[in-house]
């Protein structure tokens, strides 16, 4: 009987320790809070191969969302890519690209917003999914969607093609 009582006492102590210790951390909260649309520049070389492109001349990019306007790139040279914050409420963001202060192209980026509840502790984050893109093509050659999912994974989402 004494032996059993001793075993019970040990087991109770173990239970108390385990309950105090708790469990693993579980879900890790996302460190980022904005999912960016990552746009990269490309050109096609003489052999028909795709290669990365650094835009040599000053580039200014303005974004229009819900009637408000913000300059996201201001007179940048050798621009290779853009990281664009998407709107939580709009389903189409407008991008105005100004090349050499002479040519202007407008890009329309359609997207679906996905609010995601992570946990009670981590709250809600916003991801987006591209639904369609269109452009005016004054200076821009073409564009393509590489990955429609805009999240915290640093994926490349849109490819913009220029003629070198």
């Amino acid at each position, binding site marked *: *009987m004494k032996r*059993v*009582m001793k*075993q*019970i006492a040990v*087991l*109770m102590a*173990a*239970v*108390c320790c*385990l*309950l*105090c*210790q*708790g*469990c*693993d*951390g*579980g*879900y890790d909260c996302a460190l980022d*809070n*904005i999912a960016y649309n990552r746009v990269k520049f490309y050109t096609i070389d003489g052999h028909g191969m795709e290669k990365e492109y650094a835009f040599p001349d000053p580039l200014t990019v303005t974004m229009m*969302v*819900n009637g*408000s306007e*913000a300059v996201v790139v201001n007179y940048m040279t050798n621009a290779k890519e853009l990281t664009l*914050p998407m*709107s*939580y*409420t*709009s389903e189409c963001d407008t991008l105005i690209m100004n090349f050499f202060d002479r040519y202007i192209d407008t890009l329309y980026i359609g997207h679906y*917003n*996905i*609010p*995601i*509840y*992570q*946990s*009670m*502790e981590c*709250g*809600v984050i*916003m991801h987006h999914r591209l639904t369609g893109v269109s452009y005016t093509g004054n200076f821009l050659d073409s564009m393509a969607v590489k990955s429609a999912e805009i999240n915290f994974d640093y994926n490349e989402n849109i490819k913009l093609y220029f003629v070198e």
Partner: protein
Amino acid sequence: MRILSYILLSSLLLAAPQRITAQEISEVPVQETKPETKKAKEKKENGFWSLLEFKGVGVSADIFGCAYSLIGDGISTEIAAEANFGNRLYPTFEAGWAWCNATDENNGIKYRTNAPYYRAGFNYNFLTKKDNPNPKHYIYGLVRIGWTNFKYDVQTPPITDPVWGGEVALDLKDVEGACLWGEVGAGIKVKIVKGFHMGWSVRYKFRFTEKKAENSRMWYIPGYGKNQSTCFGGTYSLIYDIPL
């Protein structure tokens, strides 16, 4: 403070049956056995299956889940049925119901669910020996597999777009969730009066699979607890051995 009050409460509950048990031990009558032939006796004593002779069925109710609400996030209650094979092996089926209605005080997020859950597995009693085939107390190891399919609601206050402004709130209803998990652990069972046992078990739980929705992730899983890859749980049960 909550944990301390819980420990004191549960210690008192465990201490009570011990006193009764001490009185009971001297009063338990020795059962008379029918005379057996030598051959049958040998076979019974030496055969492997004789060690796992069917001895009865027990049913139990868990009261730990309710007490766990003092330190945890949900309340649960469960009943279980176990078959006794040679006082060693106890195949067990557990069915329970869990409730969670939590609101985070910091961010105002609400999570609600109430759903059934199930577990199946077995206990193995380490105190049953050849020289002590009918121990009055049990110290056992346990293995379980648990599963649940349920729906949950999530309501969040509006979140603000940090760049472009504007707010979006999330109000999800009847989101489908499911989880499959395993449990290993140990427990004790103490006889309190004839036909009744009371006992603890502590369990280490590990999640195998979880169903993810597009807009949310389960936070509380009925029968498992908070949605973590591993966690601990326990039961404090009153067990009745059905006489055959």
